[in-house]
């Protein structure tokens, strides 16, 4: 199964894309679920664990596009925030239950991704970053203006999900531990889905597009359709993370759509290692740990994160996990 996603010879890979091989690749889904299970017990706080879960999945979804397809987007806040807003609005304005609301949220962010994706894949390279950024700003300002629906600057409130009935069990979402494991189920399903996508022929096709677009085209792949599909899948996964954050916080801050949110996910993915399965989660964990620790003694923790990020771009472009993997995969 690792043969599909790691078929490309090592020499063809761009330096920052390093995938797992062997044991780590074969057992990646059970391994990541096992790690997620113990996360709330080893991290300093449960709030941090929930954030790692949500932002980790956000980064995994982003990584599908950036790490595996090679498209650098600066607008993924649109899908994260879009999923959160649509779920929140479905509950607050239409009285939907938590589960249909989450489905609507994911569907909505996929549609949003289809529209933004269709426009931005018309451009290539550096242009693509600029267009995704600009279009996500459009979503941000639309949400800001449509304050009757979104609550404008105050964010969306009034849709607290206190408990969820799942297969006859009642989960009390006001209890942090129960909420963590409740949300973890969605993250686990999403991870399993990503793993399946990466192992499918489509997973090989997106890596082919990343390695050499012209050659992929010459091989008969419809490059535009592959990119668009990857964009939509990536947007949908970020939408799942967004709906999880809406359920978790019971509010959607306008910041969820802000450029800052797009920036965070780029940094997390880079810090961990783009193009690897575990990298984004490692990046989210490190980023949030820096925030957690540094914000204890300074309100300007972003300065530290920014400097760390610059140092990584300069000296460790494969990220933490990517460097470890490259070291393990060395001939």
């Amino acid at each position, binding site marked *: 199964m690792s043969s599909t996603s790691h078929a490309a010879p090592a020499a063809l890979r761009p330096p*920052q894309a390093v995938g797992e091989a062997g044991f780590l690749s074969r057992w990646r889904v059970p391994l990541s679920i096992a790690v997620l299970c113990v996360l709330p017990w080893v991290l300093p706080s449960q709030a941090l664990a929930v954030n790692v879960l949500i932002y980790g999945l956000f980064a995994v979804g982003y990584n599908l596009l950036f790490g595996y397809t090679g498209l*650098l987007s600066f607008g993924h806040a649109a899908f994260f925030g879009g999923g959160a807003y649509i779920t929140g609005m479905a509950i607050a304005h239409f009285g939907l239950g938590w589960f249909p609301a989450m489905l609507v949220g994911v569907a909505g962010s996929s549609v949003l991704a289809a529209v933004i994706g269709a426009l931005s894949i018309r451009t290539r390279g550096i242009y693509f970053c600029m267009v995704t*950024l600009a279009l996500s*700003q*459009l979503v941000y300002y639309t949400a800001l203006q449509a304050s009757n629906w979104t609550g404008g600057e105050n964010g969306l409130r009034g849709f607290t999900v206190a408990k969820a009935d799942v297969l006859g069990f009642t989960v009390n979402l006001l209890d942090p531990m129960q909420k963590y494991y409740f949300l973890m189920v969605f993250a686990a399903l999403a991870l399993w889905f990503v793993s399946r996508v990466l192992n499918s022929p489509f997973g090989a096709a997106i890596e082919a597009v990343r390695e050499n677009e012209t050659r992929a085209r010459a091989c008969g792949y419809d490059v535009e359709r592959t990119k668009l599909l990857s964009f939509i899948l990536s947007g949908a996964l970020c939408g799942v993370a967004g709906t999880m954050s809406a359920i978790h916080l019971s509010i959607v801050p306008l910041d969820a759509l802000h450029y800052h949110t797009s920036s965070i996910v780029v940094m997390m993915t880079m810090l961990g290692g783009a193009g690897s399965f575990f990298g984004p989660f490692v990046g989210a964990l490190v980023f949030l740990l820096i925030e957690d620790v540094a914000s204890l003694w300074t309100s300007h923790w972003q300065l530290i994160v*920014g400097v760390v*990020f610059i140092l990584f*771009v300069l000296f460790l472009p494969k990220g933490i996990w990517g460097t470890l993997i490259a070291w393990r995969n060395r001939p």
Partner: protein
Amino acid sequence: MDLELFLMQLFSGLALGAILVMVALGLTIIFGMLGIVNFAHGALFMVGAYAGLWVASLTGSFWWALLIAPIAVGAFGMLVERVLIRPLYKRTPDDPLLLTFGLGYVLVEAVRITFGTDGIPFSAPESLQGVVDLGIGYFPLYRLFVLGVVAVILVLLWVALEKTRFGLVVRAGARDPLIMRVLGVDVSRLWLLVFGLGVGLTALGGVLAAPMRNVSPEMGTLVLAEAFVVTVIGGMGSLLGAVVAGLLVGVAVSMTALFAPEMATIVMFGLMALILLVRPQGLFGRPGVGA
């Protein structure tokens, strides 16, 4: 529709657009030569505004701020090019982009630490306040001044790029840096100057914009997105495109503000989406450059 109000709005749109032209030109010049998108461009615009504020408070003169701040920020840009960006030229184009993006993040936070998180009002000098009668209506003098400064800069830039040896080398270097190196031109020194020039232009935009907008650490984010919109509409790497699209976007925004205020921030993105659908390479872009 009141004609005078219409002209007023058209005019303030042009002034708004003139600022965007400065920012987008800097972005385009750097991209055209070095092939990298400077994601710290918005943050450097903001740093330019703060540098202007600082120089003005030290010297008590707006004119010194207008002169010194862009040069100082441009020099800082050169330092950035030499120390941070230069090691990345051999890597993929994404790496310098990510680096400047991280730099923008750091700059915003550094300014927050130095000057505080609140916005600071910055007023135009006495001699530029008030309105002036142009025969068809009264126009704010400061906006007229902004348009004048930008026009002068554009002429200077045009002369420098088209009529001097420096411009010849820059244009040749943008086309084929390797051949330039073979011919014995120090391309890396050229890149240093071009990066400094691009950063200086956006910093000048920042100083000029300061009296028209509230100076705050976050002012760069919107400007960055706006500059990207202008670059996409005008065509990547086209200087003429940056000028025309900058003015176009400025006018479009201020006209929408007149008729449908709630749409004002959205309209330029709609304009960009339209251009992407109809002419992905931008108004003045050549097909094959980025699209």
